[in-house]
């Protein structure tokens, strides 16, 4: 019974404490490329904003690279600055 209480205590924090790993650290062959809009899309919201690191789970280094890459992709119209209204 004691065990059950333990799990309850843990559960209080969050239903799914997914372990977040930086995708780019996990796969060394993967590179941040501003031309690859499909991959960058994973790190932006539907409206086009860059997802913060605490949500995406990226490490600082790769988050920095992603942020620069998204901005470059926006400049050359591969990604949106924001969702177009209407």
């Amino acid at each position, binding site marked *: 019974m004691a065990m059950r209480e333990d799990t309850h205590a843990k559960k209080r924090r969050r239903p799914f404490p997914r372990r977040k790993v930086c995708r780019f650290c996990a796969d060394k062959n993967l590179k941040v*490329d501003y031309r690859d809009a499909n991959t960058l899309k994973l790190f932006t919201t539907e409206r086009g904003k860059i997802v913060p690191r605490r949500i995406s789970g990226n490490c600082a280094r790769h988050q920095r690279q992603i942020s620069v890459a998204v901005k470059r992709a*926006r400049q050359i*119209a*591969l990604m949106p600055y924001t969702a177009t209204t209407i």
Partner: protein
Amino acid sequence: MAGVREYETLYILRPDLTDEAAVQINDRLKGVLERDGARLLKCNLWGKRKTAFEVKKHPKGIYVQMCYLSQPAFVGEFERNLRMIEPVIRYQTIKLAEDVDIEKRVAEQEATDRAQAEAEAKARAEAEARKAAGLSEEPPAPPSHENDDDADDRGYGDRRGRGRRDRDDDDLGGERDLRHKDEE
């Protein structure tokens, strides 16, 4: 001859341009590169694709990628030419590497180009063989830009570790665009 760098310029041409006109513009820009002593590494016509937002009222654009080795001062000249060519609706130049050894890099690029061509030929041959054997109807994988990019990245070889860190540090500094600056 101080600091030859590797740059990549992406530019978008008006979507209503014919293939011939696009090629003509690319040739003109190649001429500019040649005239000013820059070395062209590659010129890829990505073709027409939808832009993420309308650029000068155009919902689509013809993307062209040009990689070259040049002095830093040349980028301004190249972009000046881009601005003079009316069908170019947007462009962006990015620094890929600093202090490049021209001959070494050109040789590297030729090697990766060759490897890529061979890989494509092989894939085609395999697809043909499969078709002939009648095993499956799988279409051959079309050569994609992604493949090409990978090949390019591999080209940096043993300098990768250092080069990447450099790129991090001055990524924003290497971005040269006269039309718009990111506020961040």
